[in-house]
C-alpha cells in the first residue's frame, strides 16, 4: 500500500518537473523552435547593460515591435564572437578593430549608435601625476614610469583593447608586478582598483555608476583620443542559418530612430546630472573625433 503511495508521489514529482519545463518554454520568453522568428538575441557589452539604458529601451522595443529580446551582457570580444558564430542576432559593442573583421566577412553590418568617453581613474592623490598628461598614451606612460599599480581588464573587451592600443601608442609593453590583469568586468575591475588604490581605465558610464562605492577619482579625461564609440551591428544570415536577420535589423533600426536617439541623449541626466551617452546615428567615428578635436 505505502509502496503505491510513494510511487504516486514520485509520479507527481516527475509530472511537476515536466510541467515546469513545459511552462518555461511556453512563457513569454517564447522559444518554440527555429521557425519562431519573434525572438531576438542581443549580445551587448556590459557597460551599456550596467548603465540601465537597455532596461529602459528594450521593453519599449518589445511593445512596439512584438519581438521578445534576450539581452546577454558580455564583453565586446565575446559579444562579437557570438555574432560570428550566429549565436546572436544583433550586437552592441565598442571595439572598432574586432567589429571591422566581422563586417569585412559580411557576417554583420555596422552603424555608429552613440559615444561617451574613457577616463583614467585612480586614487585622488594621483601618485604618477597623470593629471599633467596631454594625451592618453602620455598618461599611461607616466603610470608605467612610476610603476604605479594599474589594473587591466585583461579580458579582450572593448575597453581592454582600447587600453592595449594606448600602451602601444605609448611605446610601453606593460609588465611587472605593478600591472595586474583582473580578467573581470568593468564594475569588478573598478572595485579591485579601489581596494588596491590602483589606476584603471574605465568607460565613463560604469565609472559614474560605481563612483560612490569605489571612491576613485577621474585623473585623466577629455582629450579626443579618449573617445569611446558604441556601434550597433545587426548580424546577417552569413553568420549562421538560425540567425533572426529581420529581428536583428528591426532592433538596430529602433535604436537608430530619432525618438530613441533623443531618449539616449537624455538618459542618466536625472541620476548623474549629465547624460551617460551622446547619440550619434548617421555619423561615423571619424566625424565624431574631428568634432571633438575642434571643440577641445
Amino acid at each position, binding site marked *: 500500500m505505502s509502496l503505491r503511495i510513494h510511487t504516486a508521489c514520485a509520479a507527481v514529482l516527475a509530472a511537476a*518537473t515536466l510541467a515546469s519545463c513545459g511552462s518555461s518554454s511556453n512563457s513569454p520568453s517564447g*522559444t518554440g523552435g*527555429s521557425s519562431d522568428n519573434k525572438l531576438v538575441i542581443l549580445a551587448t557589452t556590459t557597460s551599456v547593460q550596467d548603465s540601465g539604458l537597455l532596461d529602459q529601451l528594450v521593453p519599449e522595443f518589445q511593445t512596439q515591435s512584438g519581438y521578445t529580446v534576450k539581452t546577454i551582457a558580455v564583453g565586446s570580444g565575446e559579444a562579437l564572437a557570438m555574432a560570428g558564430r*550566429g549565436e546572436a542576432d544583433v550586437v552592441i559593442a565598442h571595439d572598432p578593430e574586432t567589429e571591422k573583421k566581422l563586417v569585412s566577412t559580411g557576417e554583420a553590418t555596422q552603424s555608429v549608435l552613440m559615444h561617451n568617453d574613457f577616463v583614467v581613474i585612480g586614487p585622488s592623490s594621483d601618485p604618477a601625476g597623470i593629471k599633467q598628461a596631454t594625451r592618453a598614451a602620455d598618461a599611461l606612460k607616466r603610470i608605467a614610469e612610476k610603476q604605479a599599480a594599474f589594473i587591466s581588464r585583461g579580458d579582450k573587451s572593448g575597453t581592454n583593447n582600447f587600453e592595449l592600443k594606448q600602451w602601444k601608442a605609448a611605446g610601453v609593453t606593460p609588465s611587472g608586478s605593478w600591472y595586474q590583469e583582473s580578467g573581470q568586468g568593468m564594475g569588478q575591475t*573598478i572595485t579591485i582598483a579601489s581596494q588596491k588604490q590602483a589606476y584603471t581605465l574605465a568607460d565613463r558610464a560604469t565609472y559614474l555608476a560605481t563612483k560612490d562605492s569605489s571612491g576613485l577619482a577621474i585623473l585623466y579625461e577629455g582629450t579626443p583620443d579618449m573617445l569611446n564609440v558604441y556601434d550597433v551591428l545587426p548580424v546577417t544570415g552569413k553568420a*549562421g542559418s538560425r540567425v533572426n536577420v529581420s529581428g536583428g535589423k528591426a532592433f538596430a533600426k529602433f535604436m537608430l530612430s530619432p525618438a530613441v536617439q533623443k531618449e539616449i541623449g537624455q538618459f542618466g541626466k536625472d541620476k548623474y546630472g549629465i547624460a551617460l551617452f551622446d547619440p550619434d546615428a548617421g555619423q561615423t567615428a571619424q566625424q565624431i573625433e574631428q568634432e571633438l578635436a575642434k571643440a577641445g
Partner: protein
Amino acid sequence: MGLIWEGFTSALRLLWNRDPETMEILWLSLRVSLSATVVALLIGLPVGMLIAVGRFPGRKLLLAAVNTGMGLPPVVAGLFVTLLLWRSGPLGAAALLYTPTAMIIAQAFIATPLVAGISTAALQQVDPEFRTQMLGLGAGRLRSLYEVAREARLPLLAAVMAGFGGVISEVGAATMVGGNIKHQTRVLTTAAVQQTAMGNFGAAIAYGMILLAIAFLVVLVLTLAQQHQSLWAR
C-alpha cells in the same frame, strides 16, 4: 559592517513589501533549483541503487566517475550545456538557450552526481543481508530495492539536500545558460553578481541574505521530514 547591516535591512524590506522584482527572482530560483533537484533525484537515485546493490563489471569505475562528478565545477557544466544548446550545436533547433529550461538542464548535470554519490554511500550502509531476507520473505526485486531505500531514507534525504544546496547556490552555470535576463532567467545568485558588478553592494548582500533564507527554509522542511520519519519509524 555598515554594508552588511544595510544588506540585511534591505533584504527584510524587500521581503516584507513583497517587492515584485525580488519575488519574481526568488520564485524562479526556487522553481529552477527544485526542478533540477527532482530531475537529479530521478536519475541519481537509480544510479546510486545500481552501484550500491548491483554487481557488474565497471561498477567501481562508475562509482569513481560519480564521485568525480560530485566536484564538477558549475562553470564546466554550464559550458557543456551551452555547447549543446547553441544554435549551431546539436540541440540548437529547440532554441532552449537562455531559458529556465536550459538552467534546469545545467543544474541537473551538477546535482545528479551529488545525489548519486551520496545515495550510493547511503544505500551501501544497509546490510546486504537485509535485502536477502526481503527476497527470502517473498518480496519482488523492485519491492526489495524499495525496502532497502526505505531503510536508508535518512541519509537519502541528505543526498536530496546536498543536491539542492549545490544548485541553488551556484552561479556559473546559471549565468552561462540563463544569461541573467531580467524577467526571464534572473535568479538570486546571478542578480547578486550583477549588483556586485554595478557596485551596489548593499543590494547584492540583500540578495545573498534572501538566498540563504530560502535555502534554509527548504532544508528545514526536508530536515523536519527526515526527523519526523525517524520518530514515526520508532
